[in-house]
């Protein structure tokens, strides 16, 4: 996008990047804030439907569309109470820590092919890492509130999130392993084509590990049945017992933000990201542009690509919404687990399952066993990166000079190549990985 400002509109470099960055920020904050509005409304409607009620019906027309907005106004108008025993500085800052972490993780989350605020080579990792920081807001809130219930909530959250990060990381590594890259854009693009290309259908182990991932994701964003940090029947409201008004709503937004984040991550890692089940977006967009421009699609440059991307974005959002909806469905159906059962679930079931699936997927991949795509063959996305391929290339490019140089310590495991073939490969990546 910065390139567009710089080259097409002839902005100065600094302004181009600044404007691009601002646009990204504004867009993402809308995803989080407006997303939270929609999700809260959705949660009410879904819980209402699940519980034989209607949910909100009046504010803003027939379906209570504006209920959340009305609540937001109420929350803003509420008194912001700070308990006498609170550690004032930490108490005030904690909601923002939570929210900022949830928000920051969106920086590396692509919404469509290349539609990402910041291309990161290690995006998967970054998203997980930043999401993990959300727990600090909770811990600080729990400690700073000066309430025992809050402290209990914070201790539970700390124990829970730290343990669930282990299986979550293992689950995420599997798609990374299959694709050979940590770049979310590349992972998404690799799954283009028929839905058989989606990684969840790659092999039985990726199918199994998706469920482990989803369980751990629900646990790590603190949703029922793992919402122990705010278990209202035990801990009143857990870590946010003492919060009111806007600060409280920041926790709420952070929760919904990270809910969508993990669902979106699941969509990219397992469900083809912005690729629909059938590869119709690109041809459809081209045809559409062709019709509108009377067959001059070529001359309209990237318009058809843009349209296809837009459809992809809608696709991605839909998948994310489905994930969030499932989380809500679970929440309104199941009772809550006990803290020791939550830990047992993690250590006894999730970690071993994730480990087995990881090994299995690796085995499957290395032995070239049939993937889901082989059953209903369709061209995989062409973009590949990855050390598997790089290593192959290096292995084939063995030169005598390199092997002569095998170091004397005898620890060299791979023969050495002397030419600089790698550079091309990397610069090819640069197009893909350039700043947005």
């Amino acid at each position: 996008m910065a390139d567009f400002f710089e080259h097409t509109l002839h902005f100065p470099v600094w302004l181009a990047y600044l404007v691009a960055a601002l646009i990204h920020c504004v867009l993402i904050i809308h995803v989080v804030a407006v997303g939270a509005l929609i999700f809260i409304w959705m949660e009410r409607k879904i819980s209402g439907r699940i519980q034989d009620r209607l949910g909100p019906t009046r504010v803003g027309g027939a379906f209570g569309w504006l209920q959340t907005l009305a609540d937001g106004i109420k929350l803003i108008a509420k008194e912001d109470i700070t308990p006498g025993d609170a550690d004032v500085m930490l108490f005030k800052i904690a909601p923002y820590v939570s929210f900022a972490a949830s928000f920051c993780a969106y920086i590396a989350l692509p919404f469509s092919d290349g539609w990402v605020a910041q291309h990161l080579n290690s995006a998967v990792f970054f998203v997980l890492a930043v999401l993990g920081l959300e727990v600090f807001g909770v811990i600080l809130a729990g400690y700073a509130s000066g309430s025992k219930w809050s402290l209990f909530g914070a201790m539970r959250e700390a124990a829970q999130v730290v343990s669930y990060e282990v299986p979550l990381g293992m689950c995420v590594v599997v798609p990374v392993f299959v694709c050979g890259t940590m770049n979310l854009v590349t992972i998404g693009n690799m799954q283009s084509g028929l839905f058989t290309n989606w990684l969840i259908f790659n092999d039985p182990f990726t199918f199994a590990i998706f469920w482990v991932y989803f369980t751990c994701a629900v646990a790590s964003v603190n949703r029922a049945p793992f919402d122990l940090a705010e278990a209202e029947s035990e801990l009143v409201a857990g870590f946010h017992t003492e919060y009111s008004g806007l600060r409280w709503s920041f926790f709420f937004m952070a929760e919904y933000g990270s809910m969508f984040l993990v669902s979106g991550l699941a969509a990219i890692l397992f469900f083809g990201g912005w690729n629909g089940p059938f590869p119709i977006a690109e041809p459809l967009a081209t045809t559409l542009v062709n019709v509108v421009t009377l067959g001059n699609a070529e001359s309209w440059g990237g318009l058809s690509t843009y349209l296809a991307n837009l459809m992809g974005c809608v696709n991605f959002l839909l998948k994310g919404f489905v994930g969030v909806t499932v989380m809500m469905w679970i929440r309104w159906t199941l009772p809550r687990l006990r803290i020791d059962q939550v830990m047992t679930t993690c250590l006894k079931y999730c970690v071993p399952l994730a480990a087995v699936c990881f090994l299995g997927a690796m085995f499957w991949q290395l032995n070239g066993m049939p993937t889901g795509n082989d059953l209903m063959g369709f061209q995989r996305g062409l973009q590949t990166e990855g050390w598997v391929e790089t290593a192959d290339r290096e292995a084939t490019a063995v030169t005598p000079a390199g092997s002569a140089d095998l170091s004397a310590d005898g620890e060299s495991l791979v023969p050495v190549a002397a030419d600089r073939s790698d550079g091309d490969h990397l610069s090819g990546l640069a197009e893909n990985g350039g700043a947005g």
Partner: protein
Amino acid sequence: MPLELEDPRVIEFDVRTDEMLVNMGPQHPSTHGVLRLVLRTDGEVVSEVEPHIGYLHRCAEKIGENLTPRQWVPYTDRMDYLAGMNMNLGWSLCVEKLLDHQLSEKALHLRVIIAEMGRIASHLVGMGAYGLDLGSFSPFLYAFREREKILDLFEEACGARLTYSYITPGGCTADLPSGWLQRCADFLDQFEPIIQEYHALLTTNAIFIKRTAGIGVMSPEMAIQYGCTGPVLRGSGVDYDLRRDGEARYTEMYDGYAFEVISEQNGHYPKDHDYPAVPKDAVLGDCWHRFYVRMLEVVQSVDLVRQAIDRYSTASGDYGVPIKLTTKLPKGEAYLETEAPRGQMGFYLVSDGNAIPWRVRARSSSFCNLSVTADLCRGCLIADIPAVVGSLDVVMGEIDR
């Protein structure tokens, strides 16, 4: 938790934290009203629980010394406000016992209908609120959906939805309106299949079983020692129900009715074949059994109401005309316990010959059931406390009176 090893000087322990005194309640989402539990916790483990009650104390017994028995009926409504009909019934029977007042056959059947419908309504709340305690919201609303229909029926009969004062010493305040019986029968037909939904939502839910099976285990001896009654007692496998085993003045109501007392005998519940099997983790006397007994009692009550409807429509006599407001009570005293939804609700009436009783006493079932909390919760986790207290299904209005 300290664990004794062979060498008494060596104590193994987890990470040691400091003991905390935590107040659960009186304003807490899971203490069912204004119950206050003082917990001594070591991390998540609760080493000691002390219930504090009395936040809803209204001196109902003292008020009873200043009102005639019929005037006191509304105060019984406010004891177990989730089963007001059954409270009315207990008090009315007690007064009638002292007066030696005999009711017509029809009035008795009417009382069975009303009392058992009240039991269904009350158990529905107990079931739904227990779901809430364990963090499951939806069963509560499913339960209330059906309870509302019962309340609609009650409202038709007496005009009130919570504090009915319908059953009064001498009979009932009014006869049932026309068509009521048919609507009631329709409700039962519609309601009975729904019980299976509740089983699917809670009773057989894996997480629910994990949370309740083997938690808060109470042996039959302990239950009797603590004076626990009702589903709490029967959940421990004691086959005791005042509708069958009570004194004649009460059991005559149920003469000729076919119903079973729900308690596990030799590893089986009556109706075992129709309803979910007991999970293998469940121990007799744990929270799961107490919950399950309530669920099965609802089915029994449905059966009872059906029979009562049939018999009421053909019975002779009137619906029972209430005694006069100023009827003089004979000198003497009477104590009568009835099987209310939460256990045995006893009323004690001492009269010196005036229209106003000398002393009125309400023996509350929840009061006794709650007194066991301290023993049941020792050494459990914080999350188990709502599970245990919820399975006792206490109503503070009845405890504090």
